[in-house]
């Protein structure tokens, strides 16, 4: 489905040649930065710099005009003032450019008649010249696989998550958070005003893209709601689609004569649309990235029965109670461990100072050595009453007890545990005073394919959301 989109948008994510218009040999311009970033990222195709200054940018010649560029140009990034965009589109048509990305701003988003008219003229020229437009007013494409960085040269690892964003700022956050939390992107795009290629086009592309397994989106509005709704229905059928709709509060309610009319709100309708399409709705950047991380690591819903290890050395029921509350309040179940497992744990760690109900507190292991701790965690993991294991790991408390070396070993154990058996292992690593050490542990775990969250609430919410989606999908298939 949507296979034709792969061909159509290939020049966006896998261009063989890019010309950056608005680069300068003499002054610092956005275009020059773009050229530098593409080269540092290791873009494998041909890069051309175009700017009125002429001269050289490093070892690259700066062509005063796009038409003077000798070779083929598939993709153009435009960072020139809007007064010159129409003329540039003529040049692009002459050069048989396939796609033009306008980083340039100052169009319909500023709300002027002039801005809107300019967009109409751009579209007309683009249609005439057989050119597709990304933007204007956007950051454009991100594709780690093809070494296309995202603004200021950010380049993460390639992976299974695709994203589509109407906002450049949010897109940048998605990329940077992706790098911090090892959410690896197949492709991403910031499409801004979307006068030509918009959310529907990019969603269709990602649905067809074999490298993309889950899609995240940030949207604020649409020019064609029906097309978006129909697109989302088709996309959500083949891949999980996680959508954050921004701008939920109403600017001004319409006067309505019916009871129904007075009860509708834009936010409620969008929520209904997303639900009806089979997409998962999230309400913040945190929720969006949390959910994408869980999809990336778990693939799909794996159940909602959680075995919680509330304290590795905390020696307190309070943390365990809080952890249990956090899970249950966010939709997870916390069933008691089987009596067999409990008996084994008592044998291993003794009755005093331990909690083996679920949540579990294995603090006594700190007096009996790491192998005992690992055995206890293993026992909890193997218990058939749970689908997921959630471990609360407080660096501040563990560091003095186990030292750096001990913590290394404990986290290596989690990575190995996650790899050798089927039950997802998720670590909650709250921040505290030992930040540098916590960060190191987080990176280690994420690299080792263990999802990490800064709070039990966020972990539980994301796990529940992903599971709901899978249940919904299954129920739908069941009815066919």
């Amino acid at each position, binding site marked *: 489905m949507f296979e034709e989109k792969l061909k159509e948008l290939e020049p966006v994510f896998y261009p063989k040649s890019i010309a950056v218009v608005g680069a300068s040999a003499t002054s610092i311009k956005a275009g020059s930065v773009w050229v530098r970033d593409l080269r540092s990222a290791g873009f494998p195709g041909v890069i051309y710099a175009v700017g009125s200054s002429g001269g050289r940018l490093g070892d690259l010649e700066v062509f005063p005009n796009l038409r003077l560029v000798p070779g083929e140009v598939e993709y153009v990034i435009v960072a020139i003032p809007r007064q010159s965009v129409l003329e540039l589109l003529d040049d692009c048509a002459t050069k048989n450019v396939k796609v033009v990305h306008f980083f340039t701003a100052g169009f319909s988003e500023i709300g002027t008649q002039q801005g809107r008219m300019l967009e109409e003229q751009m579209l007309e020229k683009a249609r005439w010249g057989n050119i597709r437009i990304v933007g204007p007013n956007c950051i454009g494409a991100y594709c780690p696989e093809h070494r296309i960085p995202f603004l200021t040269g950010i380049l993460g690892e390639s992976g299974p998550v695709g994203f589509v964003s109407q906002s450049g700022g949010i897109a940048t956050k998605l990329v940077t958070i992706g790098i911090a939390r090892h959410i690896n992107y197949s492709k991403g795009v910031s499409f801004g005003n979307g006068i030509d290629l918009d959310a529907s086009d990019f969603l269709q592309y990602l649905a067809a893209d074999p490298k993309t397994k889950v899609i995240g989106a940030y949207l604020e509005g649409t020019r064609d*709601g029906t097309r978006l*709704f129909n697109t989302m229905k088709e996309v959500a059928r083949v891949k999980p689609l996680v959508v954050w709709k921004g701008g939920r509060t109403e600017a001004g309610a319409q006067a309505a*004569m*019916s009871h*129904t009319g007075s*009860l*509708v709100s834009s936010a*409620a*309708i969008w929520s209904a649309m997303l639900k009806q399409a089979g997409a998962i709705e999230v309400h913040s950047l945190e929720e969006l990235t949390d959910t994408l991380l869980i999809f990336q690591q778990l693939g799909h819903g794996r159940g909602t029965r959680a075995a919680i290890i509330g304290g590795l050395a905390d020696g307190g029921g309070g943390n365990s109670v809080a952890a249990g509350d956090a899970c249950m309040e966010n939709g997870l179940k916390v069933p008691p461990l089987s009596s067999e497992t409990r008996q084994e744990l008592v044998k291993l760690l003794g009755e005093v100072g331990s909690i083996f109900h679920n949540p579990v507190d294995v603090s006594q292991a700190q007096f009996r050595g790491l192998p005992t701790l690992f055995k206890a965690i293993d026992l909890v993991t193997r218990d058939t009453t749970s689908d997921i294991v959630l471990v609360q790991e407080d660096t501040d408390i563990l560091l003095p007890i186990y030292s750096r070396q001990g913590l290394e070993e404990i986290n290596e154990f989690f990575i190995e545990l996650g790899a050798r058996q089927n039950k997802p292992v998720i670590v909650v690593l709250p921040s505290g005073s030992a930040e540098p050490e916590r960060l190191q542990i987080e990176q280690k775990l994420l690299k080792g394919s263990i999802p990490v969250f800064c709070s039990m609430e966020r972990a539980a919410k994301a796990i529940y959301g992903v599971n709901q989606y899978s249940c919904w999908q299954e129920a739908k298939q069941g*009815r066919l």
Partner: protein
Amino acid sequence: MVKSQNLLTEVESKELLKKAGIPIVEAKLARSKKEAISVSREMGFPVVLKISSPDVVHKSDSGGVRLGLANAAQVGKAYSEIVSSIKKAYPDAQIEGVSVQPMAPPGVEVIVGMSKDPQFGPVLMFGLGGILVEVLKDVSFRIVPVTERDAREMIKEIKGYPLLQGYRGQKPASIPALEKLIMNVSQFVENNPQIKELDLNPIFAYPDKAVAVDARIILE
């Protein structure tokens, strides 16, 4: 505030709905006190009288509705009272007469409506009637066309759903009948793009069926 040519009367609205297979409590227009009494006798008491005017949107607000009229005398009195109340409240209103309909036995009150969203087109709304909608805004929405699954989910989604399943002695409502009604309304608005807004409020839901007691259609 009100555009007479766009607001269909209850009688007109119900005629359209009936043709579309949507269950309604039949209402007949009576242009005089005498007619009101004869129509009531024909229908059978008790009846309900409501003002019929393209200019009056909220009938009950200004004394335009009389429930539970048990005999001819009550009907006659109600007719006069309604007309004078409305004439007082809306002196310029064009009054056709009153609509007469049988008083429906109590059931679970629900509301089904349609409104047009500028981005997504016609949208259906479902909710439990009365306070639950007005104060708590416990409603669900789906974009037209609404499938069987959508209808089922939008009903189950509302917080007051347990009331539909029967609560504290009140009989349950037929969920399949409500699903069918919702889907019929979806089809109806798809077939009639000239409809701008629609309210079926209240719908009385019984264990075996669901019927619209009042209906309001507003055209583009």
